[in-house]
């Protein structure tokens, strides 16, 4: 038993980590980003590899790589939103939404990846839960739960800091 604890703490060779997660990370990004997923997937594993040598233990590696993937996807979505913006901005609602999204993106940085994606997609992109569920590969119920748990967590964090 003690031996198995030591084994999970140990950082596996990157090759083994990569083989364990490459497919599910691509699936996740494909649901979030569609056709643009491949570049984001490559960026995710490049970032992971850059940081891999500085990891202090091998626990929660799956959550860790999903956090990176979520961050990369958020960067992609933000860039895409910027590109889509028309130069003539006479619609205040769009401007407001843009600011709200930026704010949200910043605020949600500390959330677990699924909650963060659910919160950003729901409140930043105004996507219905049925689509968020599709993006997260979960049920509509689970997407709703992730978003509300993310919001609760944000509120707790906010309250602690005021």
């Amino acid at each position, binding site marked *: 038993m003690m031996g198995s604890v030591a084994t999970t703490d140990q950082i*596996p*060779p*990157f*090759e*083994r980590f990569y083989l364990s997660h*490459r497919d599910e990370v*691509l*699936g996740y990004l494909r649901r979030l980003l569609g056709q643009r997923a491949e570049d984001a997937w490559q960026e995710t*594993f490049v970032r992971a*590899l850059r940081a891999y040598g500085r990891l202090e233990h091998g626990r929660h590696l799956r959550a860790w790589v999903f956090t990176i993937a979520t961050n990369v996807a958020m960067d992609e979505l933000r860039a895409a939103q910027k590109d889509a913006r028309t130069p003539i901005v006479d619609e205040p609602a769009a401007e407001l939404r843009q600011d709200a999204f930026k704010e949200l993106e910043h605020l949600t940085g500390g959330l677990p990846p699924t909650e963060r994606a659910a919160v950003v997609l729901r409140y930043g992109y105004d996507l219905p839960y049925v689509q968020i569920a599709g993006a997260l590969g979960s049920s509509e119920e689970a997407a709703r739960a992730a978003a509300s748990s993310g919001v609760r967590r944000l509120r707790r964090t906010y309250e602690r800091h005021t």
Partner: protein
Amino acid sequence: MNVTPELDAQFRALAVREGLVDVRYDLIASPIGELLIAATERGLARIYFDPAGQEDELARLFGVRVLRSPIDDVRRELDEYFEGKRQEFDLPLDLRAAAFHIEVLHELARVPYGSTTTYGTLAARVGHPTAARAVGTVMNRNPIPIVLPCHRVLGANGSLTGYAGGLDVKLQLLQLEGAILA
């Protein structure tokens, strides 16, 4: 959602090109069985006769950023060697992880193709004529067999003595080189 072989190869090549890998390795087929070759940015660092599970050993020696990726120059030179078309290797080597043995390994690298020497001779060449047994230990732990030709080192009475890849492999390599008759 499976990563395609093209995307996978693209990532591996990028990781190596960007210098993000501590050690890369590949598996190659050879007449003496499958070999695992491993290289750092400095050069060829390891050849294993038994590829299974060596990723952990590589991580321990060089760092956890271990990634499988083709090592074209090593593969090509080994292929040529096994086809009998190459007598000397022209590969950069990384012997950092073998620092203690480095003097003996450098001397070993000078033993020519198609010839043999003995543990005692090698010991004498590095200035320790009585250290044949210690030289045997260094041979036994040779990080880059074949390229550093410990198969060319025999006992004083001409016996094959020992080999990490098995005595049959030692014999096969010496026969390939024409050092002994098939």
